[in-house]
């Protein structure tokens, strides 16, 4: 029998397929990149930056939810922690350049993420979601009570400052390209993580945890790492947001925000790379467009209707449904 040949043939076919998929991904990414680079000339840059910040937040969340199967109901805590930390540092230490403030904000959110993970990672399913919710409520309480956050009034007038000490971020275009660069870097990082050896283990854990354990994986540690990375990226999103808007507020720490990121991810398509980005764009746009128009009193009910329809008719989300459609019709 010529079985070895069959084997290598199959291997080759598999590699071939991987490459084809990579090419497809590259094309999609390239198109998106061009669109994003050109966008501020067609649209109001600050609005675009808002979308990018939320998209990053959703991407971070999806790394945990879509790719590891852990539903965190407390991700607002990281967004807010990143934002407040960066805001506080940039406001009070004028010697800091903007990127240092952002790095510090991200670092604090990462540490908080580690703390959350240590307390919650062993809980399963809905209990995990609820512990993260509870922890984030405690963080919320801390922010409400702390002087430095300005409580309900928020932290205002955070200076955008100079990137690396010489690029003026007061200019919306400069700021936009900076945000875009960070976003792309993070997006690529997540793409890499998902496909990395580590990503494979996450996938395995998501699909059958006891089996992963029996294959010798200490799943708690893998989950913890995923949680921490996700928290870090969420914190980064918050830091950037506070610089863009020059403001950090309790809004970002409220449980509604944790809910909103779930919605964005689901509407866009959980477990897909692009889904959260599309979902964030969609939700931010709908909220914004509606609040401008004659339907502005109806933002909540309309969003409610959208969620109902999503769940009933497009359960895999926008990107998920498109992927399904392509698979079905284009082979």
């Amino acid at each position: 029998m010529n079985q070895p040949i069959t084997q290598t043939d199959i291997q080759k076919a598999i590699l071939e397929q991987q490459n084809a998929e990579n090419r497809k991904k590259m094309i999609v990414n390239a198109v998106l990149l061009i669109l994003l680079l050109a966008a501020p000339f067609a649209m109001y840059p600050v609005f675009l930056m808002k979308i990018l910040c939320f998209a990053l937040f959703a991407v971070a969340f999806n790394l945990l939810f879509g790719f590891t199967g852990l539903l965190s109901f407390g991700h607002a805590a990281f967004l807010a922690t990143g934002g407040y930390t960066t805001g506080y540092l940039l406001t009070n230490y004028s010697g800091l350049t903007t990127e240092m403030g952002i790095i510090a904000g991200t670092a604090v959110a990462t540490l908080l993420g580690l703390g959350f993970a240590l307390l919650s990672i062993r809980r399963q399913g809905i209990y995990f979601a609820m512990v993260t919710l509870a922890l984030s409520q405690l963080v919320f309480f801390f922010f409400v009570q702390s002087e430095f956050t300005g409580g309900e009034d928020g932290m205002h007038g955070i200076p955008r400052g100079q990137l690396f000490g010489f690029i003026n971020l007061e200019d919306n275009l400069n700021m936009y390209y900076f945000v875009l660069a960070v976003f792309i870097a993070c997006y690529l990082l997540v793409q890499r993580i998902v496909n990395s050896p580590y990503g494979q283990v996450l996938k395995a854990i998501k699909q059958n945890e006891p089996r992963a354990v029996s294959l010798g994986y200490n799943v708690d540690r893998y989950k913890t790492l995923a949680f921490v990375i996700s928290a870090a990226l969420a914190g980064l999103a918050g830091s950037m947001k506070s610089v863009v808007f020059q403001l950090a507020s309790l809004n970002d720490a409220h449980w509604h925000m944790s809910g909103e990121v779930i919605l964005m991810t689901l509407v866009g398509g959980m477990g897909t790379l692009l889904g959260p980005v599309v979902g964030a764009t969609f939700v931010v746009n709908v909220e914004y467009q509606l609040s401008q128009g004659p339907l502005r009193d109806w933002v909540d009910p309309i969003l409610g209707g959208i969620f109902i329809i999503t769940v009933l008719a497009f359960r895999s989300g926008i990107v998920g449904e498109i992927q399904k459609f392509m698979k079905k019709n284009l082979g």
Partner: protein
Amino acid sequence: MSEQYVLETRNLVKEFKGFVAVDDVNLNIRKGDIHALIGPNGAGKTTVFNLLTKFLIPTRGKILYKGEDITSLKSAAIARKGVVRSFQISAVFPHMTALENIRVALQTFEGNSFSFWQAGARLNKLNERAMELLDAVGLTSFANTTTVELAYGRKRALELATTLAMEPEILLLDEPTQGMGSEDVDRVVELVRSAAKGRTVLMVEHNLSVVSKLCDRITVLAQGAVLTEGDYETVSADPRVREVYMGSDGSGERGATETNPASAEAAQ
């Protein structure tokens, strides 16, 4: 003394809220044996498996692996030491391809499982070994099939291949032929036989024709305690075993094939 046994339990006890499911069990599994654990329903076989792999925590007693006390190790650590189990219900990663399923197991030894910055292509070097394993269980042509789409029997085969990828020194199989037609049963028997080369196997099985064909040694559990131990001949001749387990005709066989235990023994 200990060298000859890979796996031993000393006075192992498991209680569930006062109910003693495993009662003072001393198992001694010899290196290289295919060892069966049989007994009536509810005798505690699955529970013993769960204790050995730490899916349950023993109430009392010790577990020794190659003479070393592993009672306090966690599941994953035990698996990395080479004690690997398969599950009573099929346990695969349903949305991965067969090949990826095996790679997840092989990856354990790569030491890069936390490397989230590395490219996924790094794992391609595992493909060769993975294909070999798939081939061994006759799944070569399904390498790129998503596992949910595989038929039940093939899932079990895949699971076995994944388990073998761990290079286990001792393999724990819980009712590997459950729910299979006679055709598949024969296939699994062959699989286990070939997998057992150079390793130790501990299996739970109700299909006595399988037990008689495969196993070197048999421990009979009843009501949580060891009733008797020995080879198939001895055990099946024991009147107590006939009473609590095998029933009047003593064959306890399943499937349409009427295999004579004696001839099976002779074939080995």
